[in-house]
Structure formats: C-alpha cells, structure tokens
C-alpha cells in the first residue's frame, strides 16, 4: 500500500486537521466526539442540516459544510459509521432553534447509529427528524433485506435541503423535500480496481487485469456482477440502462414520528419517470479516476438520455463521493422539478462546492 498518510489510525484525524487549517472561514473541527461544523453555526432560527457517515468518501460530507448546504458533518472511521455521541454533539452545536434534519445513508451501521442519536437527541429535547437515502439501483430486492444503499443522491439532497434551510423552510418541509429528492434519485456504479483501506493495507477485493465489478457501493464492498473490461460507452450503457429500466422501487423505512414520539415504519415507492422529464445528471469519480474519463462517460450518458427522451438540465461531473483510491465511476440521475432546480441553483459556499457567491 502506497498512500500519502502517516499512521493509518491518524488518517481521519489528520485529514480533518488539514481541513480546519485550510478553511477557518467556513468550518470548525471538533474532536472527541468528532464533528465538523459551519463556522457561523448555530444560525438562529434556521433548520440545521446534519449528515455523516464513514470517512473515505471525501469531499463527502465535511467538504459540504458551509453556507447553503450542511451545518455539520460527522465523519466516522474509514468506511465505518460514526457513533451516536458524534451525531448528538453535532446536533447540539448547530441547533439554531429551527430543529435538525439528519440525512442518513441506508447502511445498517449508519441507520442504527443515527437512530440511537435521534433517540438520544429527543431525550434531550432537541427537535430532530431523519431521512434515509437509498438510491442505488444495483441492489435489487428490498423485501426483508437491508434495501438499497445510499450513494450519489445523498449530496444532491444535501445541497437542495441546505438551500431550503437557508431560505427559511421549516423542519417538516425540509424533511418532506429530502424524502422527495431521494425518491426521485437513482444511481449505479462500477469499479475498475478495488480501494485499499489504510488500516487493512491491502485491496479489499481482487480484480483481474481484465475484470471490472459492476454495481459496487462506496465502501469497496463487492458489486452485483463481475464482468470483463468494457469500453467507456458500453459501461455507460450498462449503468444508464440499469437506471432507466428501474421500476417503481418500494421499501419500508423507519422515520421519526413527532406525534408518537418514536420511530414508525413508513412505506415509500419511487415514482416512475416519464419522457420529457428534466434530469440532473451526475457523473461521479470514485477517487482514482481522472476527470477526463468522467467527461467521456458524460458524453455517452448525455447521448443516451437524449435518445430516451430525457432532458438533462443540470449536471455535475467530478469526484464528489469517493471510495478512497478506487478507480471507477457512478452515475446518478435525479428527476428535477422547478422547486428543486431553484434550490440547486441557490448559492453555496463550502470547501468543495461554491457557486452564486
């Protein structure tokens, strides 16, 4: 393993210290428990948006802390959900009186830790709602299983909800908006190489010189199918077709019910897309893939969307949700409406995304 690190156990901590030194105007970093929060938080009256998850996906989430996006991010160890005390401390730090929305990716670890944090927060009289992101179409059935993973749609939801919070939406409105974004977003990824977790020191999985792994997640977990290496166009077609052909996905998720004062099961189904729908197309690099290759993918994706009668009205191309040094990419398509477009375009100023300001 060759990496620009010191001791593997200091990887997350030292990277965060670097962020704190680099962006004192945007964010502050707190240790024990660890979280990153907006320099000016709490913003009085504003709903606070908090996310978190394992590290190794940078810039997600700490790179998105700032104006118009996240109020706090809770980084776990590499590929390991953060712990409830981090999430609780972050919520307390950024609570401006408008309540807190936890945006949670659907992995058992993240779900359980955020559930515990939500319970702890309510026990301390904080107003917290939490919404799950589960947009990875590579995971097929949901009945009786963990269901789909949260991937690319996560950061689109963070941007859109962050803008809504900035514009004065209330907690319930933002939770509803976040759920809607999730139901309208679909993703799928491919790996050309495995990532190497610093603490492990060897690649998580072995891929032959001519093999790729289709349908991977963002933690180096194996995908749904191993196949021989293909051209960029063929790969784009497989990913895009999986997304296009995904039928109305249904699942039961647990959401906090403010009236009941506890978690309840909620049944949700993705709406179907229709020709003429407007999309945000997001081509994401996994960390070890050069930007030029992502544009080659985007070129084919745009072509395929046109053929399908979908209109790409916004796009995002770059390595925004990564899996350490993995080579590969993922595609996320989000069906937009006027409100989402307006919120997507709203100003954002974070370490990684900045526009309109």
């Amino acid at each position, binding site marked *: 393993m060759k990496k620009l690190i010191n001791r593997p156990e200091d990887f997350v901590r030292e990277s965060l210290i670097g962020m704190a030194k680099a962006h004192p105007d945007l964010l502050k970093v707190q240790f024990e428990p660890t979280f990153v929060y907006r320099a000016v938080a709490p913003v009085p009256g504003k709903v606070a948006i908090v996310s978190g998850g394992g590290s190794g996906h940078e810039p997600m989430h700490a790179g998105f802390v700032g104006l118009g996006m996240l109020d706090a991010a809770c980084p776990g160890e590499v590929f390991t959900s953060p712990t409830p005390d981090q999430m609780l401390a972050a919520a307390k730090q950024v609570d401006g009186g408008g309540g807190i929305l936890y945006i949670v990716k659907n992995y058992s670890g993240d779900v359980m830790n955020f559930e515990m944090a939500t319970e702890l927060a309510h026990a301390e009289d904080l107003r917290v709602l939490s919404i799950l992101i589960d947009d990875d179409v590579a995971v*097929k*059935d949901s009945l009786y299983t*963990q269901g789909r993973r949260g991937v690319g749609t996560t950061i689109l939801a963070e941007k859109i909800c962050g803008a809504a919070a900035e514009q004065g939406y209330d907690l319930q409105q933002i939770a509803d908006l976040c759920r809607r974004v999730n139901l309208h977003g679909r993703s799928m990824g491919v790996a050309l190489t495995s990532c190497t977790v610093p603490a492990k020191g060897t690649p998580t999985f072995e891929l032959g010189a001519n093999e790729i792994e289709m349908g991977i997640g963002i933690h180096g977990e194996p995908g749904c199918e191993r196949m021989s290496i293909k051209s960029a166009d063929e790969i784009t077609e497989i990913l895009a077709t999986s997304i296009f052909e995904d039928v109305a996905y249904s699942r039961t998720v647990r959401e906090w019910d403010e009236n009941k004062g506890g978690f309840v099961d909620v049944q949700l189904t993705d709406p179907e897309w229709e020709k003429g729908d407007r999309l945000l197309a997001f081509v994401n690099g996994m960390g070890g893939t050069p930007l030029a290759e992502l544009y080659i993918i985007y070129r084919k994706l745009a072509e395929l969307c046109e053929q399908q009668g979908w209109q790409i009205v916004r796009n995002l191309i770059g390595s925004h949700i990564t899996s350490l040094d993995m080579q590969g990419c993922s595609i996320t398509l989000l069906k937009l409406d006027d409100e989402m477009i307006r919120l997507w375009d709203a100003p954002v100023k974070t370490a990684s995304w900045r526009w309109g300001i």
Partner: protein
Amino acid sequence: MVTKEQILQWLQQFASAIAQNKEYLTQLDAAIGDADHGINMDRGFQKVANQLSNFAAQDISSILKSVSMTLISSVGGASGPLYGSFFLRASTAVIGKQELSNEDMVSLLQAGLDGVLQRGKAQLSDKTMIDALSPAVTTFTQIIREGKTTTEAIQQATVAAEQGMKATIPMVAKKGRASYLGDRSINRQDPGATSVYLMIQSLSEVLVESLVTSD
C-alpha cells in the same frame, strides 16, 4: 455464582480474542462487506480492555453499562450499536449485582440478545450475528433450565454458537452490507456471527478455567 472478577476476565479475554482475530474478522468482512469488522471490534475492545481496571470498583451492571457506552462511542459501523445494545440491555438485567446466579446469567444473555434483535431487526437466517447469538442464548437457557451447571451450559452454548456461526456459510444475507451481494454472499461465513462466537467462547474459557483453578 459468576463473580465480578469473572465478568472482568471475560471482557478481557474477549478483547484478546478480538485482537488475535482482528485480521481474520477483517478478511471475512472483506469478502462480503467492507473489510473493517476486525478493525472496528478491536478499536472498541482495546478501549474496553484499557478501561477495565477503572471499572473494577463498579457493580456488574455498571461495568456492563460502561462497556456498552465505550463500544457505542468508539466502534461505529453496524457492530457498534449492536454490541453496544447487547451490553446495554444486559446491564439492565443485572442491576445492582456483585455476582450472578445461573438465573441472572440467563437474564443477562437473554436481555443482550433482545437488545441486538431490537436494534438490528434481523431474524434468524439473515446471516448476521443473530445466527450465532440466538442459538447460544437459547442453548444456555435450556441447559440451565435442565438444572445443569453454568460451566456445562456455557460449554454447550459455545458449541451452539460455533454451529450457528458455521451455519451462516450457506446463507443468503438479508441484513447488513452482505445483503447487497444477494446470492454472491453464499459460501462465506458472516463476520459478526464469528465475533459473537468468540464472545461466547471467551466466556466459556473464563468460567471453565476458574472452575479448574477453584477445584
């Protein structure tokens, strides 16, 4: 009677077993998960092991609760809340105790299992730690109910945990990260079930060994 010292030895023993099997557990997780189960567990249990001497003055319930808090705030991932819930609920089953009767031991393990079930919502055969934990607890309870000794019960429970662990091999995962693999999770042993087996085995070693020494 299981003494507080034995509980402390158990935790110490489990921490050592995790440390010894760190790579192995991580390797199992690499195959069907994200290659960190051993790393996660070791991070938490090293912390537990380092704090054990501080816990020694507390009663058993408080010790278990402290262990739970340490795990919840240092393990993360899926195993953090699950092991955290195990020890948290176990602690509430033995409040105020300085030593544990056979019935106390049954309550402790049953409560722990319930904690994991409630937190993780997994069922038997979902290819999770439940597949080792549930048969172990059921067997322990049953052998105690048959009037046998703690050591007999825990030895049988260890056998049951091991069988349960191995039984995860042919299963299709339904919960946790391995569930994304669908059928490709077949023929792999679940890392969480493996660490649970180590936990039960550690308890057995401590109880059997002290039996030998106290004989």
